């Protein structure tokens, strides 16, 4: 029984880190541009398809697919911000919501036209691989995605803290008007930030391609999952995203083992309600000024 609990908890932790990875892109865009990207799930699914296609056509390993997804989705996100999103930055929130829901539906439609509705399972051997440490069996695909999530967070944190452009981004996130007054290139900062958010979504999608079959309709699930994760962890906080993901992952695992597996989703949404009631800004979210 102890072994079962240990395996399930470790599995929950790894899955939680994967959830954190999925939520990263959403939190960076909100943290800087203050826009809630409802198309986030569709961007993750784009990454999933990149992982699927590069594996199927060229036999690329998942890490290489993630690098390709990062570059492609950065360019895509950058262009999307420059061509469409920037016109809505100062518009009311409900108009922004409708814009992103529209973009999401458009993306899902494009994926449907290109790939069809059938689930496209990964052909990577990684889907079946585990490593054993003592009696623990660790899922290699999850371990890889979890490591990538940690590396991405550290890299993004270092970029924001130590690079001059990172400081620009933080300044723009703190005070957009102040940034404009002192001559910061706010439109460029926003475009690059949106690109980074899209790249994070793409990388996450490619990294989880051995775990989830690529399918356009997953977009809604991923968007919802990312929302719950960042709301629990705290909107705009990288570490919060990771913490939120971990909380959901562990809650789901424990709920499945302690009660019934079909209670997994119910308990994670129950947790969301508790967080909204008693700590609306999430674990690590900043207090509203």
């Amino acid at each position, binding site marked *: 029984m102890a072994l079962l609990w240990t395996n399930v908890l470790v*599995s929950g932790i790894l899955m939680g880190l994967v959830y954190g990875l999925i939520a990263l892109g959403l939190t960076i865009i909100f943290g800087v541009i203050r826009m809630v990207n409802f198309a986030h799930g569709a961007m993750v699914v784009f990454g999933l398809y990149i992982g699927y296609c590069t594996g199927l056509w060229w036999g690329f390993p998942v890490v290489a697919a993630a690098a390709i997804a990062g570059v492609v989705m950065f360019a895509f996100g950058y262009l999307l911000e420059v061509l469409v999103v920037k016109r809505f930055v100062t518009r009311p929130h409900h108009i922004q919501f409708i814009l992103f829901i529209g973009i999401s539906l458009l993306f899902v439609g494009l994926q449907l036209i290109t790939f069809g509705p*059938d689930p496209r399972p990964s*052909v990577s051997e990684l889907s079946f691989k*585990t490593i054993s440490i003592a009696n623990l069996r660790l899922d290699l695909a999850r371990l890889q995605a979890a490591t990538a999530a940690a590396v991405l967070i550290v890299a993004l944190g270092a970029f924001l803290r130590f690079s001059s452009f990172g400081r620009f981004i933080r300044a723009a996130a703190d005070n957009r008007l102040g940034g404009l007054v002192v001559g910061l290139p706010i439109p460029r900062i926003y475009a690059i930030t949106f690109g980074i958010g899209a790249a994070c979504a793409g990388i996450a999608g490619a990294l989880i391609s051995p775990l989830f079959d690529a399918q356009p*309709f997953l977009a809604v*699930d991923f968007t919802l999952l990312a929302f719950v994760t960042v709301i629990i962890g705290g909107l705009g906080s990288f570490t919060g995203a990771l913490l939120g993901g971990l909380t959901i992952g562990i809650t789901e695992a424990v709920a499945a083992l302690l009660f019934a*597996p079909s209670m997994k989703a119910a308990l994670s949404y129950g947790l969301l309600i508790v967080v909204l009631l008693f700590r609306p800004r999430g674990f690590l979210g900043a207090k509203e000024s």
Partner: protein
Amino acid sequence: MDKIVQARKPTRRTVLGGTLGLAAAMAPWRAKAAMPSVKVGAIMPSSGVLAFPGQACVRGVNLGAKFAKERFGVVVDVVHADTQSKPENGRIAAEALIRQGCTVLVGAWDSGATISALQAAEAAKVPMVVHIASATQVTSQGFTQVFRFYPPASKIVRLSLAEMKNIVASLSDPPKTAALLHLNNTMGTSTATSIDQAWAELDMPLKLVAHVPYDEKARDLSVEVAKAKASGADTLVSVTRVNDAIMITRECVKQGWSPKMIFSPNSNGVVDKAYYDALGKYAEGAMSTGLGYNPKSPDTKAIIAQFQSDYPNEWLDVNAGCAFEAIQIVADAVVRAKSNASADIHAALKTTNMEPVLMYSGPTQFDSTGQNINNRIAVFQARGNRPYVVGPESIAEAKPQFPLVPFEKR
């Protein structure tokens, strides 16, 4: 004289009257001369989580319409509607199709959507031929417009477990215990309940040691499989759709759990192409039961050839096969009814007695609840990247293989 001539001179009124009279006189002749036709509404989950089988059903319906024209001389005009894999959309789709003039419906694959569509069919008195949907409630709720080709979960389960019992009895080192992993939707719960009942009634030689239900939209089944593994069972009995069948097998491989037997009554997975594409060598040996086409039926080869010509990258699976058969049932009823009106088709469907064209089953006959009473099931085993019929013996293509080769040795 002039007056008489003037009176006989054609006026607009006489021309119009004459034309109408001529048209009225010609109408019966035209109706007799033209090929009978029927507008069929096909309700399927063409998008959403059930899109994979839903699209297969659409292919089956289209092929069925083509075949019915040649075989029965009936023009089947199909109007497709998509439930988006949401049960509540069954009713919306049915109402829309009825408004478009469909006088008979076919569908809806998912039990929840089927029941929802039947409510609309019942209100409008439009018959519905249910090609697939196994929940008992489809024919137990008193609907008068339902004609279900597919057997209810309880019957499939009973027949499946009887086959499983035969297989286990023939083994020198039979499995002793089983864990049941099942979906918690309408179909999954209904099938799991039937398994529990039939298990005791048939006095199965294995002991059921764990019940693990899971959500249809589950993203991860690691805990569920860990629970089943922890029960110590040496057989996995699962009730699945394709996606979760793939996830379960992946988790079994990752967690180092190799059951001696994987047996999935009334389930998708082993019969679907996606299962083999995703699992490769790990698919080998798993068994499932359900309806299947009869490899020994006289038309089967020609139908498969036509299907492969129309859809070169797809399989004629159970979804497409049952949808195909449903269209033949409708065409047969239209021919016998000599009408495409809903009431006439309904009356004809009630007296259906036809040998299935493609599927393995006894003659299609509906009882007072609308249930086809002569269903038979086939047992499939995944072998070399496709399912083989391994039971019953009369249509078997191969003998069942047992036990499964452990995953780590593949």
